[in-house]
């Protein structure tokens, strides 16, 4: 099952911040530089890293990192 650490690696790569730590409740307000364009890069990077595709409905339901992780876990375990 995909772990928070695996998702954290994607965040670190996208934000180019090797020390970045995320929690389940982390959202855009908690990470410096998480603006609109970084957000798009992040969603695409998560899709590519875990070989999943989100719908706009799913993305619209995210409120924090935990929501993203749960959906990635559900999609990868169902595959």
């Amino acid at each position, binding site marked *: 099952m995909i772990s928070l650490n695996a998702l954290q690696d994607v965040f670190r790569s996208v934000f180019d911040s090797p020390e970045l730590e995320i929690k389940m409740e982390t959202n855009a307000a908690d990470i410096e530089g998480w*603006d609109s*364009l970084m957000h*798009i890069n992040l969603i695409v990077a998560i*899709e590519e890293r875990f070989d999943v595709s989100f719908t*706009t409905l799913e993305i*619209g339901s995210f409120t924090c990192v935990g929501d993203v992780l749960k959906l990635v876990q559900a999609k990868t375990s169902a595959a």
Partner: protein
Amino acid sequence: MSSPFAGINTARIQRLMDEIIPEPLEWRHLEDIAGLHARQLSWSLNGRMGPEHIKDLYRALFSCPCFFGYAWYSNGRLAAFVTATTDYRSTRRHIMSAYKGKLRALLGVVLRRPRFIVALLESRFVVPVIFHQHEARGEWLTFITADDNHFLTPFASLKLMDHLRRHYQDRGIGHYMAQGFKDNPKAMRMYEKLGWNIVARLPMHNIYRYSSAPEATAIQA
């Protein structure tokens, strides 16, 4: 323009953007867009003049034939919209009508925040000269997003911006301008990341020039 998504699989971005369907603005959207504007830009000069003034502004804009825009609703709620004009001179005349009879209210706002006096003077007298120097007709007026739904809003933002660009392109308008208020640094950062061309830096505003050519889109499909 260099893409802010260099090295990223833009086909994935395009796929998600394709699911977002903006609506052309009509009178029926007025209450929603004025409400979102009043909530999100309450710190601005117009915002400080109150929600009724914002409605007056959009009534004036909708009465201008050159005014247009696009809105995106998510789960039945307005989540983002963009407005613009194909003739900034005509639209600015319409906008002036929204201030009629409000001199006292306007003075009340600007005297409490003298920075707004400079902003007003720039907007009224300097910005049109710069637009004229660039032989522009089109002006991007507002781009506002709701706070909620933030995980999806960036995709909708790109979609709305691209609709705007296409609108100009379809009408043979090769470029359009915008004035960005410097007190909104988040928006300034986004514009600059998208590679838009700053043609003038005024004390209170940056002036941008955008191309409507297909290659000017942030997403190269």
